């Protein structure tokens, strides 16, 4: 497996980090994803993915401020690195080109709300 490989969930988390920066940390990401996907997202799953993304060099982290809800513990905040940014851009390019090549009649019609 190449280090630059990225899974679907990883991609989504990476995008969410980009969305939420500068307040991107596991709880915020998990809550946001839960809202977006209406699935239960456990904190541990998000934390693990962030850990992995950091190992791959797509995000970097630093310790942020502490809050009362956290029992006075600091949070780890994440931002997207250049490599990370390149990766999501590449993924997006691949997707876009794929979308562009889909003929209008190929997909069954659905109604997006």
């Amino acid at each position: 497996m190449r280090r630059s490989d990225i899974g679907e969930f990883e991609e989504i988390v990476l995008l969410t980090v980009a969305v939420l920066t500068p307040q991107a940390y596991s709880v915020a990401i998990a809550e946001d994803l839960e809202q977006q996907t209406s699935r239960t997202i456990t904190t541990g799953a998000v934390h693990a993915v962030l850990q992995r993304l950091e190992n791959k060099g797509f995000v970097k982290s630093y310790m942020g401020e502490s809050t009362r809800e956290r029992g006075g513990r600091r949070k780890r905040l994440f931002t997207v690195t250049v490599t990370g940014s390149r990766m999501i851009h590449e993924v997006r390019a691949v997707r876009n080109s794929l979308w562009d090549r889909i003929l209008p009649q190929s997909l069954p019609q659905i109604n997006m709300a």
Partner: protein
Amino acid sequence: MEAKNPKKAHPPRWLDKLLECLCTPDLLEEVMGDLHERHYLRTQKLGASKARKYYLRDVLSFMRPYIFKQKTNYYINPLQFAMVKNYFKIAYRNLLSKKVYSTINIIGLSIGMACCLLIFQYVAFEMSFDRFHENQPNLYRILQGYARGGEALDFGGAYTAQALAPALKERVPEILHITRLHSDDVIVSNADQPEQVFEEDKVLYADPDFLKMFSFPIVAGDKQRALEPGTALLSKQAALKYFGEVNPVGQVLDVTGRVDQHYHVVGVFQDVPVNSHLQFEILLSIDDLLKSEDYLNEPEGGWSWNNFSTYIELHPTANPAVVEQKLTEVYLNQRGEVLQQQGFRSELRMQPLKDIHLNAEVSGPSNEVIGSSRTVYFFTIIGLITLCIALVNYINLSTARALNRAKEVGVRKVIGAQKRQLIMQFLCESALTNITAAVLAIAVAAWLTPVVNGLAQTHLSLSMWVRPDFWLALLLTLITGTVLAGLYPAFVLSSFKPVTVLKGKVHLFSAQLWLRRGLVVLQFTASIVLVVGTVVIYNQLSYMRGRDLGLNLEQVLTIEGPRVLPEETDPAPAMATFLQQLRGLLTIEQVAASTTLPGQGFNWNGAAIRKATDDPANAIRGVATYIDTSFAKLYGLTLVAGNGFEDITLSDAEDAPWMVITNEKTTKSLGFATPAEAIDQMLDIGGHEAQIIGVYKDFNWSSAHGEQQNIVFGHTGSGRYVSLRVSMHDLPATISEVQSIYNQLFPGNVFNYEFVDQAFDQQYKNDIRFARLFSVFAGLAIFIACLGLFGLAAFTAQQRKKEIGIRKVMGASVEHVVTLLSIDYLKLVIIGFVVAVPIAWYIMNLWLQDFAYRIEIELEVFLLAGLAAGMIALATVSWQSIKAAIANPVDSLREE
């Protein structure tokens, strides 16, 4: 916004704890923070109870490999080695500064360990018997068990008939090798020096397979010819004895015994190791023994006399249980009918070679070294008890002194020592004490080995020291000792709270006090049991040795008759001449002849005796021996009915019945109401017709181990043994006179004499040995226990110095103070005594079961032992108490 119920708002604490345990420290903060924040958010959204469910799920979602603590220690502490060094340094200083306690601990432990080492040597030696044979796992001795009617089979003897081995070899294919053995004592001389004769009682007759089965290596000579008829093999030592520096191979040896023959020495074998149950110096072919007229004419084709032991080597793949059955089948095939006629059942069994030595219940016909597994167990336990008593000393003294160490513990804790480190420290101290004791113990054991050998006639040797398992055992003792003795004090000492300790408030918990007292009670229980044991053993021993035998053995000298007679000399008249000449000596009061002597068994064991009219199935088992007309008078046998041999004229007629005299027990066993009723009754003794002419009052022919037997005496004119009642006046002159007559009449024989009472006492050799060893260990045990008590008493006296000072100032007398200090310990000894009495009573009764004639354990024994223990304890304690009591109160109160 604040949750309504703060308790519910908080996530489950046990999950947090769990996470704290599992999570690596550098992730813990963010993870825990995340979890708590999420929980807070969920509580807001979904309510407390749902949030708690989600919390569990969340925690579980974190259980991934990267989150767990790694095995490798992140913080390798470079100080650890330095700390261990420091522990040993402090331990060493403590040892030096508290000399009395250190000495008590080390001496106690080293004596305990030395006991263990000695006992280990003894046990290892006893267990090593016959293990040196390469084929040992496949070697067995055949036991033959007999029973009559419904009795259980008695496998007490390893005696088999000569015809058994050939039959088995032919019909049992699993048997690789088989040999018959028979040991004998004979007269031996170098054929070139016929005037130098030796009596040799370690001669073994064997089949040629013998050397293939057992590992007795031949070091010189011709292996091929070994154990051929007419050849002899000598041990190195025997070769030296008979041929000196001359090469023994090719020399000729004259042997006089059951068969007289010249033997060509064809080889020399390595001296038989002491840990072999078979002991022999000369090895001869069994074919030569079987050539003797006795065996050539043996009735029933060699099946009638069970005079041989049979050893087999099985094929390595054979199943012993199957072979065992086959053996019995083959045997019963041959002998089943005959046995049935005599009303016997019989079975053969195989006894593994390694089990022979420690199985004293089975006796064999060969010269055997017999040990006792019970003795081995007894001493193993005693050794462990001694060691435990020493370990208890260490525990007691270290916890007692804990108070003095409390400040040190406090300071260490304040500086940052963890409990684990403190435990480590105190274990190091225990290790140091134990190691010092072990080194001393080795020295003590080495020094004691010859002493114990002398006392107990054991063969302990320093060669044990080079064995790896010995060092392993020592290491094991050391580690268990260190941990057992060190762990409890380590926990007690390391659990002090620094704040209270440094304030100067230390109280010993009552639990510790109770434990210490309990341990002292335990020590004294063990010691008193050992002391009672010693007293009982010695009482039993002196009872056995001083018991009225019904035989007068005093001043009786015995001589063995000649083995070799000049050619064409008739043995009977030669003996008669000898007896006649002895009777002529002034210093000899009485002379008698017999075929065996008191304390040395009988000629005929296991004879079936019944009334002539009775059914063979009702026969009783008895023993027989032959005496002459003067024997009864010399040994003081008294008739209760009928006549002795001296009172009647014995008929020489061929058809005259065999005249016998029995003991009372026999007449009772046969069912006669009174001895008088038995007189003139006809008996059948092993197929011979016999008539009872007299009945002797019961007497004890053998040691107190065995029950009274059914004894039958037949008459003989001569007999191999001559008993002389001599006057003790100028004994050496008498003996030399007897010797000169002997040498003159029987040239070429060895003159041996013995005092029959001493020879009789030889039967108690093992018991005496046991008693001596036991008392040594009991003495050591109580000594160690007292050492501990001494230490505790010294400590208490030290602690209560001020109290005693004040008491004295207030007017307490010395006696009062001594009583005050001693009474506590005396109480413990008394409790120990109370606990010890039933234990000792039970164990010693178990031991006494071994003796047919035994003492009752009387109350006095316990009182004596208790009193002795109490006195010793009191002496130990009062030394310190008196010292404390007579001290000037000014000295103890002036300080501060």
